């Protein structure tokens, strides 16, 4: 550095001596007074962070190693309105709030209703469980679940109906879509392409993010169909197809969050997500792609999820640094964009931290999460709405409170005025190092086993996560971990504070009840009017192609969906070739 030299005046010997004196003169009498053996709080000094190199370990926001942030400043700070659920800067094209229910007609009408209330974004589609598991709405396996956890999509016809809400200035070359779909992700990608082709829209203009993170499904969430090996072949097909044909598409939205919800510890969450990301990157490289041609199209859902404020912040900083280092050092990426860990929010509490008991407390919890997100490089999003654990869907009241919480954090508390406010903190930097190191240790352990696919096939990752979940439960039951209103502070003088859930929700429960019969009729109509001979022929072609490992199946799937082959017909063909995943015993 030229010019005026700045010198950090840190004298380790003097600090050590001062610490000793503090312990004797201030801490010891306090311990005596409170009859304690050990100081219940920790205080950090430069001694906890020896040989700290700011540029190497932190750097500047938006620059390697991205500890301080993915971007130079948060994109929404450029918008006038704010964050999260509310509209952002007009230049940003984003998919809207995660939603989906009923038959496609119901969801289309919901979208039109939301547009009448000012929604401008594309759909962020929740698919029902039968769709996610590759079953049609008329399958015996689907009974009772059609249109419940999301919207039912069995054929391209259903997709066409949903997207009737998106035409003209909201046509699919203008909006972005999100698809929370994993095992049949390539079928849904094929449907979007087919929809564009039918509308005469160049597929290059399509913007979307399929979740398409199948490996975490084996560890958490459980929406898998095929075994891990063939699932990775499907992943390779999406990486190659999207890279070559859909330049504005994200390939995947990787998330450790689901594994965390399933019980993973912080370190497992971090290591498993990085290992899963690395496995997908290897698929692309092994398929002959240049790392910088596709790594920038990897996005992340979310990691983390706990009430431990400091540790969740450190975790986010460690995750950004690990991903950047993984790409740069191990994959040789050169494009700065390849190194970015792009995700919609940073630290958060996770749904698992919300309680059914005294549910309004969840609002307090998510404000803590919103603060952690803002302080770890994300928007101050207070997520999820407080009534998440009630099993009734988010009420509009709860959504309003969540939105207001983040508005208050941004505009009144001004939490977003500083990026990475903990940068350089002796405490935060040493905690970040600690979490990163634990993450790498577990990451290397998985690599030694042969990588994530092997670690999933052997059941290692699933068992470790289940064990961690059980350990947590035991700590809650023994009172070692405290959860307010659940295992402590539950006396009869405590109040269960409630608020109303009176504003009618745009999801119509009656429509949800009727969705199954409506969808079965829809499907019957499609099967009656389509060219069944063509479907049989195309499914046969799909089977032949599936048996040839090197062949990319997505062009075949596009042909199939265009002929209105169903999700289950396509998945059944692939189940026949690939087999079905059988869970390892617990």
């Amino acid at each position, binding site marked *: 550095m030229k010019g005026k030299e700045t010198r950090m005046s840190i004298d380790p010997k003097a600090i050590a001596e001062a610490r000793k004196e503090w312990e004797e003169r201030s801490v010891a009498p306090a311990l005596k007074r409170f009859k304690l053996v050990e100081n219940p709080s920790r205080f950090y000094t430069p001694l906890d962070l020896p040989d700290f190199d700011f540029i190497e370990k932190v750097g500047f926001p938006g620059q390697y190693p991205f500890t301080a942030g993915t971007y130079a400043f948060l994109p929404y700070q450029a918008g006038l309105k704010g964050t999260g659920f509310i509209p952002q800067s007009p230049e940003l094209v984003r998919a809207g709030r995660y939603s989906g229910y009923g038959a496609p007609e119901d969801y289309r009408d919901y979208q039109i209703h939301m547009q009448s209330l000012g929604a401008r974004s594309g759909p962020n589609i929740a698919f029902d469980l039968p769709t996610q598991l590759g079953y049609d709405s008329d399958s015996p396996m689907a009974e009772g679940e059609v249109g*419940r956890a999301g919207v039912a999509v069995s054929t391209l016809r259903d997709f066409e109906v949903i997207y009737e809400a998106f035409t003209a200035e909201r046509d699919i070359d203008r909006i972005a879509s999100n698809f929370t779909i994993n095992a049949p992700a390539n079928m849904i990608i094929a449907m979007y392409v087919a929809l564009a082709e039918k509308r005469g829209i160049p597929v290059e203009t399509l913007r979307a993010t399929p979740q398409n993170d199948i490996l975490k*499904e084996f560890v958490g969430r459980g929406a898998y169909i095929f075994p891990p090996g063939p699932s990775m072949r499907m992943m390779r097909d999406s990486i190659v197809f999207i890279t070559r044909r859909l330049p504005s598409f994200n390939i995947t939205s990787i998330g450790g969050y689901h594994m965390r*919800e*399933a019980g993973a510890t912080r370190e497992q969450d971090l290591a498993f997500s990085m290992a899963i990301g690395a496995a997908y990157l290897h698929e692309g490289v092994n398929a002959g792609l240049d790392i910088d041609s596709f790594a920038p199209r990897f996005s992340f859902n979310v990691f983390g999820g706990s009430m431990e404020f400091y540790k969740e912040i450190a975790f986010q900083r460690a995750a950004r640094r690990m991903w950047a280092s993984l790409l740069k050092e191990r994959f040789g990426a050169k494009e700065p964009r390849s190194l970015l860990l792009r995700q919609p929010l940073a630290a958060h509490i996770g749904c698992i931290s919300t309680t059914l008991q005294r549910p309004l407390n969840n609002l307090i919890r998510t404000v803590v999460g919103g603060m952690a997100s803002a302080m770890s490089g994300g928007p101050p999003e207070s997520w999820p709405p407080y009534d998440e654990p009630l099993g009734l869907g988010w009420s509009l009241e709860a959504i309003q409170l969540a939105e207001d919480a983040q508005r208050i954090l941004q505009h009144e508390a001004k939490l977003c005025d500083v990026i990475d406010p903990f940068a350089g903190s002796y405490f935060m930097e040493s905690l970040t190092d600690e979490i990163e190191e634990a993450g790498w240790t577990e990451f290397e352990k998985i690599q030694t086993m042969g990588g994530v696919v092997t670690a999933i096939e052997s059941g290692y990752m699933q068992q470790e996560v289940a064990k961690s979940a059980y350990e947590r439960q035991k700590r809650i039951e023994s009172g070692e971990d405290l959860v307010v209103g659940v295992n402590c502070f539950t006396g009869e003088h405590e109040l269960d504070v409630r608020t109303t859930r009176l504003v009618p929700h745009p999801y119509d429960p009656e429509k949800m009840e009727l969705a199954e019969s409506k969808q079965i009729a829809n499907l019957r109509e499609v099967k009656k009017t389509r060219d069944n001979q063509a479907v049989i022929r195309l499914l046969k072609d799909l089977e032949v192609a599936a048996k040839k490992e090197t062949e990319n199946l997505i062009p075949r799937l596009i042909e199939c969906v265009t002929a209105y082959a169903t999700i289950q017909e396509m998945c059944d063909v692939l189940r026949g070739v690939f087999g079905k995943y059988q869970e390892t015993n617990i």
Partner: protein
Amino acid sequence: MHDKRKIRVLVAKPGLDGHSRGAKVVAYGLRDAGFEVIYTGLHQAPLQIVNTAIQEDVDVVGLSILSGAHLNLTKRVVDGLREKGAGDKMVIVGGTVPQADIAKLKGMGVTEVFTSGASIRQISQFIKGKVGGGPASFEGKGDKDEH
């Protein structure tokens, strides 16, 4: 303890819901509490669960459902058990069940519903109280000495 076999519990995941944390934690917990536990794994059709419950000769069927499809799936399991002459097996449900649905489930023949925040201790004491063979310290109101 009486000189009889361990209480056998089937922990089952009916339907397509893949959230297995609760089911696995309960399975581990009941195993540690001295029960014989069989876990079905994910994506089980109601009839498969009925058949497994009969084949494994379990005393208790625990259904874990977090997808919102609990009314439909539970009814099919309960009816299936009755149809196959196994209506005496106790069915309990765990998961994300709205308050208003708990009475509906009990009306179908479900003995108890355990929602988020329930402890393994509560579940295990409840089963021991109902099925018998429970420890002397059990405070519940079940018929400990049936059989």
